[in-house]
């Protein structure tokens, strides 16, 4: 009996943590999303009206801002995830060889990972500066001409994406490098009897062996890319216009800036939760399908 009670004591902190910081906010914000609550005003229950307004269901017009910000989040979701995976894997592949100064270079390459995203955004303001930024200077130096990073919609979107890629490539690099280094050398030695091609070795030996790690990294990056707010906040302020405003940025502005429409912001956030759950479910379904 005493032993039984002891195990509950040990479980208690974790249970309290989950209840207080996961379950309660989840239920409370769902309740909030069913109201028209603005901070400072009495909330009124309105059912799923907030969801209907965002999605344009029934008599409501679709929330154009939600759609446009969701499209930019989708752009980051696809573009940033794919680019980060590509560069991270490539750099890991390079570092998986015996080259001079690799250890020092590895330390340098991982540095952006430890910077606050908002600080990277501010740094991006300098780097992408149209007139005197080093990126434009390099582009001009190699004859590609200057890019209006903060003025034209598509370059502004790329500026946000590249800053995010810059921060997260080291994360992919570290995980994938660890996976590559766990591939037994004898596999390569056997394969090298048949081919010397690096590409063939990578395609048929390295890639299958690192695929589970890549899948996990991809999932984390996809969910992470849906949450991006700090980089556009500091880099572009969501502009020009609102083309670099992400969905989360929009939810933040709706709930916590000026109008404090917490009910609508909670509904926006919940829709994001649904999307994230769908993505992770698909991923785990595919993983299960593959490995069972």
């Amino acid at each position: 009996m005493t032993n039984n009670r002891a195990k509950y004591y040990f479980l208690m902190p974790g249970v309290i943590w989950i209840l207080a910081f996961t379950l309660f906010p989840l239920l409370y914000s769902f309740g909030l999303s069913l109201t028209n609550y603005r901070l400072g005003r009495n909330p009124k229950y309105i059912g799923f009206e907030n969801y209907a307004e965002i999605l344009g269901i029934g008599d409501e017009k679709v929330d154009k801002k939600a759609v446009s910000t969701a499209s930019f989040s989708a752009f980051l979701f696809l573009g940033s995830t794919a680019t980060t995976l590509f560069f991270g894997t490539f750099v890991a592949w390079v570092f998986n060889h015996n080259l001079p100064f690799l250890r020092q270079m590895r330390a340098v390459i991982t540095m952006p990972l430890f910077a606050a995203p908002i600080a990277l955004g501010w740094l991006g303001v300098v780097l992408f500066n149209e007139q005197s930024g080093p990126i434009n200077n390099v582009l001009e130096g190699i004859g590609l001409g200057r890019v209006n990073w903060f003025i034209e919609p598509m370059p502004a979107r790329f500026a946000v994406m590249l800053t995010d890629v810059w921060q997260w490539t080291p994360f992919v690099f570290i995980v994938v490098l660890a996976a590559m280094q766990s591939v037994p050398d004898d596999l390569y030695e056997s394969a090298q009897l048949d081919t010397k091609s690096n590409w063939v070795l990578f395609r048929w030996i390295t890639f299958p062996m690192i695929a589970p790690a890549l899948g996990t990294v991809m999932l984390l990056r996809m969910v992470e890319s849906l949450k991006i707010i700090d980089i556009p906040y500091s880099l572009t302020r969501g502009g020009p216009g609102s083309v670099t405003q992400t969905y989360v940025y929009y939810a933040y502005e709706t709930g916590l800036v000026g109008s404090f429409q917490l009910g609508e912001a909670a509904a926006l956030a919940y829709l994001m939760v649904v999307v994230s759950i769908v993505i992770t479910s698909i991923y785990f379904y595919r993983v299960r399908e593959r490995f069972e």
Partner: protein
Amino acid sequence: MKARFTILISIVVLLSGVFGVAAQDTFFGQTAEDLFPIPEVAETELEQTLAFEALMNANIPDGHALGEGKTITFGVLGQGSRGGISGTIYFWRNAFEAATGAELEIVEIPYNQLGTTIPADFLTGQYTYDVFIGAAWQYGDWVSNGWIQPIDQWIGDERFAHWSPEDTAPAFRALLQWGGETYGSQMDGDAQLLYYRHDILSDPEWHAAYEEEVGEPMPYPIVTWQDLLAITSFFNGKDWNGDGDPDDGISLHLAPGGQGHFHFATLAASFAVTPADGDDPRAVSKYDNVFWFDPDDMTPLINEPGHVMALEFLQELAATGQEAQFGWQLGEAWDNFLGGNAIATFSWGDVGSLSQNVERSAIRGSLGADVTPCSSEWYDRELGEVVVDTENPNCVGNTTGGSWHPTMSTFSENPELTYFYMALIANPSINFYNATTGWQGVDPCCTYQLYEPRGTAVSEDYTAVGFDASDMERYINAYGSNVYDKPTSVTYLRIPGTLEYIQETLDIRLSEAMTGQSTAQEALDNTAEDWADITDDLDVDSQLEIYQQAIGYMGGM
């Protein structure tokens, strides 16, 4: 005996002289070096000396009875201890603490968080701030929610530094008040002026070149926005400053979140606002002196023909400057003009005082300043048509901007001590000094800063602090003319949700139009749609009542 008496008298005179000097050289026992240490507070000895002189001339009373051992918290627009607006609060903190024995805590709030931090503090019942500096457009939220309290009961009380709302130009005084009561103490008077390169535009050689290229005389002095466009179009891309590179016509800042929307309001005023007929051209009717909403039903006016014309004009004007300006913040546009790379800009009074700082400005002695131009075409709401009249253009002034000033929290536990600091900063001697520094972002507001006949200042007041006399004559007279001479002025939007209407919608829609993502008409139609939704959310009837009160609309035609 006679010799002894003479010695005694000499000693008395000497001692009184010594103590007299000592008394003059300290402020509650603190020297200029104590109050304005270099580099922590002041940057130069000159700044230290001038600030101390201003403080000594302010006749600050002893506030120890109010403040000994107490602490007050000041929330302020966050731009650092040497930045605009917040710099003022840091700069005089030591003086306040010396005069009261109290402690002043300063909490900086970034510009883009102003609409969040202060309301959230009140709405969640934290009441962190005894006093805070926000923008005058937030009065609608603050007063209607009961977050700030009137200060009339202390104005004129000898326990506090002297200042009087009567010294403030009426257009700015109105921004300190609501419903006949004074809520704010004077600090900054924001209005936008046209600035240009006086040396270039008055050069006969450039006049000849203009006439040769355009086929008609240069329209200078600039009277209308259309004149300005003609001039900036001519100069844009020419190397008129002789540095070997092509230079700009206009310098604007148009990045979202960077206060660019204010410039649209200033410009659009002459395209969209008509003064009232009759004795009082500033009288508000359904058709005259309205800019934001229809005062009868809160229908947004932002997509009416005058506003659309103005935005199309702004697009044309912006094309006579650098493309990069679409991504610029305020300081970048100023620096481009102050660095001598643009023929003109229109912006706040800061440009006038910053132009005198040779570390930041290359145009000291070459500054031209005037009221913002009139427009030779505008939309008459009553007629329902666009009027074109080049002989009698439509002229509308402005008090565009934050006119940043302190307001006291209703929940302050030390209201008199809080007012002590508000009054200290509002004192004419100190406020005059602040407005001459440039870096503090404090602009002229008051008669003691304006030249005759509008005020009592004289040229020597400005040359004494190192300003160029002719620059100041143009700048200060333009400032005075804007608030006293224009037949009318664009009404100031200060209703609940102003930040939402302006910063979260108009600002973004303008950016979309200026960067080619939408046409002027589309951008402003979208804005009108957004505004209608916001008004619905906030309750139309309540918004209408506050709007009518804010602009002084009494109903009828």
